[in-house]
């Protein structure tokens, strides 16, 4: 499809169109400056920063534990992944080993987070492209997952459930029953979404061959997660640099070679299925009893009972929650596979109770950078599809 708009004199004429920051398909406050030749995008320039809240600066003014609550708010669709990335980084700084039970529960919950996040993505992406009903279904299933988070942590979204050394609370009894109910029903629901979309002619027309990025380009642009795997590069942090006992789980890394919006759709749908596989394995592995937090006096809070019955426990409790704890000086970078790609957390310590510097390598931020590569030369309507499959969360892009 090549159409060019020409002026009576034969010159090509371009027009600049501002899309956003208030636009329903930009998923927040993304602004894209489009230079158009007729309906063809000649140049696309994302403008970000409308949601910049200075989270990295705020972290420097908080103790290590207080900063966990800020990590929830970076990628608000996958708070547990952020919690995990940050906690692992601080644990690496401390040289701390987390009990296996907590590790498995962390894996289980972050995989559920991935399902929830991909469900939101699928629903909103479909609504952007005109398939209204998928949105209603995916949000119904997502709610069931959020109910599990609420059951465990007391919060649907801003969970802060992972803490340095393990988990915040002993998991509520019979929580695994609830998880089982969700993961048993989820594959059937995904089949339903696939029935609605995968061979849908309009869906194929809107996504196939749209927003192509090659594997080499995707690596050069720093794309990660489904963006990279949709271009045929099987890079997954869970496999390449396993953390939190991921090496004990069996799962595949779905890839698609095409590199277009449809490939990224297929990768994400396949990822939900893989996540369910991991959740099921984790359910088998999680011991019913045992410590859910590492023991390290002065750094990890003592158990509730110890705090109430022993004077040392009370002192440690008080000190940890007022002063915080001080890891040794040094700097670490911990990467995890968040639903959107490689989430890296860099923490530098100067030996005090507050992090000297925290940096979040936000996958959305880096993935969004390749939007011009995807959208240029395509129609305006395709820009919406491209933004959609980039799967950005503006909270994370702007931090």
């Amino acid at each position: 499809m090549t159409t060019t708009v020409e002026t009576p004199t034969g010159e090509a004429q371009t027009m600049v169109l501002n899309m956003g920051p208030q636009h329903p398909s930009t998923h927040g406050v993304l602004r894209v400056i489009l230079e158009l030749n007729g309906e063809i995008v000649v140049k696309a320039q994302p403008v970000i920063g409308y949601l910049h809240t200075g989270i990295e600066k705020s972290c420097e003014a908080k103790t290590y534990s207080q900063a966990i609550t800020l990590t929830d708010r970076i990628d608000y669709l996958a708070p547990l992944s952020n919690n995990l990335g940050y906690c692992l980084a601080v644990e690496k700084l401390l040289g701390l080993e987390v009990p296996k039970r907590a590790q498995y529960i962390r894996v289980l919950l972050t995989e559920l987070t991935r399902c929830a996040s991909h469900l939101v993505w699928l629903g909103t992406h479909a609504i952007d492209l005109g398939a209204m009903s998928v949105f209603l279904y995916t949000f119904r299933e997502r709610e069931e997952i959020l109910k599990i988070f609420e059951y465990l942590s007391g919060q649907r979204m801003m969970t802060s459930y992972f803490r340095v050394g393990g988990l915040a609370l002993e998991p509520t009894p019979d929580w695994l029953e609830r998880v089982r109910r969700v993961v048993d029903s989820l594959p059937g629901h995904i089949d339903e979404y696939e029935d609605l979309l995968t061979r849908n002619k309009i869906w194929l027309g809107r996504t196939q061959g749209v927003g192509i990025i090659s594997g080499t380009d995707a690596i050069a642009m720093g794309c990660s997660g489904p963006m990279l795997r949709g271009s045929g590069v099987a890079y997954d942090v869970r496999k390449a640099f396993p953390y939190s006992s991921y090496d004990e789980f069996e799962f595949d890394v779905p890839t698609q070679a095409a590199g277009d919006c449809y490939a990224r759709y297929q990768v994400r749908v396949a990822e939900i299925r893989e996540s369910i596989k991991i959740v099921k394995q984790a359910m088998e592995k999680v011991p019913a009893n045992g410590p859910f937090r590492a023991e390290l006096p002065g750094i990890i809070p003592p158990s509730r009972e110890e705090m109430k019955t022993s004077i040392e426990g009370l002192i440690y409790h008080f000190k940890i929650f007022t002063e915080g704890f001080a890891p040794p000086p040094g700097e670490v970078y911990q990467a995890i596979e968040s639903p959107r790609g490689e989430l890296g957390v860099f923490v530098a310590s100067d030996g005090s109770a507050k992090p000297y510097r925290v940096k979040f390598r936000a996958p959305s931020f880096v993935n969004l950078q390749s939007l011009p590569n995807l959208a240029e030369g395509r129609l305006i309507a395709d820009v919406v599809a491209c933004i959609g499959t980039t799967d950005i969360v503006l909270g994370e892009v702007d931090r």
Partner: protein
Amino acid sequence: MHKLKEWDGEAVSEVLGFRGEITVVVPREHLKRIAEYLATEPSLRFSFLSDITPVDRFPIEPRFEVNYHLVSIDRRDRLRLKVKLAGNDPVIPSVTGVWPTANWHERESYDLFGIRFQGHPDLRRILMPDDWEGYPLRKDYPTEGYR
């Protein structure tokens, strides 16, 4: 690591290890050369730049540290390059020619730390408004802002 030293011992000023992570401290003059070498050398293939993180060590001199986090996807390896910059001259060559993804990372570093990247195609603020004064993530910038 040894490869890098073999290739050019002068280009590496220090090698640090902490918690299993290797950090190579590199003088500013050699950064671009090393970046090209690491990205293209067939036995290394650090083709993926995952992040650029500046740290402000104010009031210690050299004040700024710029960390480059590299990943070799094929070899499953990570490496951190660190360049130290003086506070009165925070200028560093851009690596956008080697890793195009550095573009936004460097803009962010410029925006929040005021580090200037020489040879960057489009060095503008990215997160803060264009007319913002000061560099918020510097240590001498108050957390509550100037008011």
